[in-house]
């Protein structure tokens, strides 16, 4: 059958926020065309990129995502007239904010993938996965989640273990 796949030391967790009309359909097309791409991506479906709140991206990183993808319809193709135009501005601003607080923007990808672009979906997902794999795990938010105010800290073995696990 297929040759043995290369095993990696680190499998990044990639979360993709996509609109249902273009990118989700594009990913469906990649499926019906039996294209192959890394299994690291988890897709969350939205009606429109206009629905995607920046907080979701933050949440995704907090929940342990190593990379986040936001993808929707090309400009002018929005099923809802202008949702992606609003999203474009929102994320142009939000990524600047994340950058300023020290998030490496290489971990956050935006793309336009239409319902016809199964190939592009594969390319975007593969590129991001490989890029993030090379960067290693996103430790910043994970470390932060374990950190306590000094007064609430108890030096338990579990906590140390959790720390070392990152």
């Amino acid at each position, binding site marked *: 059958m297929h040759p043995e796949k290369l095993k990696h030391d680190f499998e990044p967790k990639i979360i993709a926020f996509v609109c249902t009309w273009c990118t*989700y359909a594009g990913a*469906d097309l990649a499926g019906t065309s039996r294209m192959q791409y890394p*299994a690291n991506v*988890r897709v969350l479906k*939205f009606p*429109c990129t206009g629905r995607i709140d920046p907080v979701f991206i933050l949440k995704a990183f907090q929940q342990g995502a190593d990379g986040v993808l936001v993808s929707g319809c090309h400009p002018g193709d929005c099923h809802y*007239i202008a949702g992606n135009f609003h999203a474009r501005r929102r994320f142009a601003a939000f990524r600047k904010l994340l950058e300023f607080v020290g998030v490496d923007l290489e971990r956050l990808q935006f793309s336009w993938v239409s319902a016809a672009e199964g190939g592009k979906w594969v390319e975007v997902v593969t590129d991001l996965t490989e890029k993030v794999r090379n960067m290693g795990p996103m430790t910043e938010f994970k470390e932060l989640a374990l950190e306590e105010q000094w007064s609430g800290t108890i030096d338990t073995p579990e906590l140390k273990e959790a720390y070392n696990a990152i």
Partner: protein
Amino acid sequence: MSRIGVFVCHCGENISRTVDVERVAAQVGKMPGVAFATDYKYMCSDPGQTLLKKTIQEQKLSHVVVAACSPRMHEKTFRKAVEAAGLNPYLCEMANIREHCSWVHEDKQEATAKAIEIVGMLVERVKKNRVLPTITVPVTKRSLVIGGGIAGIQAALDIADAGHHVVLVERDPSIGGHMAQLSETFPTLDCSQCIMTPKMVDVANHPNITLYSYSEIEQVDGYIGNFQVTIRRKARSVDEDKCTGCGVCMEKCPVKKIPNKFDCNLGMRPAIYVPFPQAVPNTPVIDRDNCIKFKTGKCGLCQKVCGPGAVDYEQEDRLVVEPVGAIVVATGFDLYTIDEKPKGSMIKGYGEFGHGKIPDVIDGMTFERLASASGPTGGKILRPSDGKEPKQIVFIQCIGSRAREKGISYCSKVCCMYTAKHTMLYHHKVHDGQAYVFFMDARTPGKAYDEFWRRSIEEEEAVYIRGMVSRLYQKGDKIVVMGSDIAVGVQVEIEADMVVLATAIQPRTGADSLAQKLGISYDKYNFYSEAHAKLRPVECATAGIYLVGACQGPKDIPDTVSQASAAAAKVMTLFAKDKLEREPIVARVKEAGCVGCFACKKVCAYGAVEEKEIRDRQGNLIKVVAYVNPGVCGGCGTCQATCPSKSVELDGYTDEQIVAMIEAL
């Protein structure tokens, strides 16, 4: 705790080949809130759906996740099945483990692990799903048609014949539009007025049609099924109810030499006039700019001679409000005018073609009036400058159209055919004349179109020259036309008596402002945008508004009429129900948290957000909050992402559902 049922589909081998479905079911069965998990060969099959329904009832399931193909494929199928089993259909979600998993990964271990996570995500999501009721909105079974050309007339007649009331609004004093101006029509050469005027009369006499001529749309409120349209009825200065259409006023009017727009300014009309004899309604209108009474306060002759006392100088514009359920937009087109560049025109000028300086360079519509039996020359082809019959006539196609460097890149679609028609009409009327046509390509798709075009060459002796005209200029009483024949590769110079330019079709001036009133989108040329170019060509993205004719893009009469009937059918489909049902994926405002900043309103592309006053029992205003009209909401959720306090929420895609999915990862 929820009792979630998870059904993992093998899809034959499509899923099970790369995903260990049994393991998925076993793992998912351990997730918090899952009461039942199984796998099955074909979930979408009849027995599969039966299994689903049976299990819902036996296991008293509260929510369902079907892990199978893309929801774009079978979400409707399973939601229907779930509904049949007595659950709200929106308590069912699909986990896509085929297109997004089994088909795109080879490693079974990896694919299985991913499938478990995907299903886990949907399990968490479905827990937060709420029962969503079907949304119904009432339908006002009356329709508005904007524009009284052939497009509007056809749509209005079809809808009215189906038994629904139609309000037809026409900007000009008479309906008829461009088609009433034409002499004959291709490819059959029927007399345009002969086929058009009966329809106009039908409109006037139809019990289900209210005709507002000389009127314009002032304001449009509401949404599908429930529009409120305010119409400005411009002051006609003649009472339509009293006027008998005898025409005495027009005979007696002392001002007679006003160029008649209907005749492309070749003929003259009085200050009180109907644009053409067959006008509907046959009620004159006073052109207040040219009327002596309005200019100086004297005269008043028409009022004196009017038997029924219909002339009313005091008449003012009136606003009428009509409730309608659907709107058909059929505002038609303007021709790019060669003599005067309209303000804001995208066309960068055709000065080299005489540009209105040479009187015998005319446009196609002027030629139609010359050829028309009811036209200013009684159907004789005569030069506007000296009234002589032109013996050499040159037609130039694609003036304005298909010339990106000149401003617009689209093809006006009808010019090839009407130019062919013009050469024929010319040849029929000037037997010893010669017609030349400069053309880029002849575009003649359409039933009997190419045959028609060939006939103009083969039987009617038109000479077609492939190439564009580089320059033309007046020389004595001739017009020298210089161009190149690229087919042969020679320069051509023709001394013509008359030149006819096939100028571009453009949307009506003001099409954009009407679109803004209607809340519909338009392209960069101001042509109105259909919801989908192929599959929803007569609907707007804004529900309840339909497009007909050249306002949507250049079109000939047969296409326009078909589209009119299609739009009428759409309106009838809408009117076939007393209430409209729609998918309940709409935004809802949580009024307690709304602080009325209206950021939601600013980003709503549908104009679905309204301002709502919250008052206490004494009637004192507490605050103004947003209200999303569920009939208008498109369901994109941009408002929710924009709302700072998250006081507006898109049902089916709430923050709770999405955060639950993120936290499941």
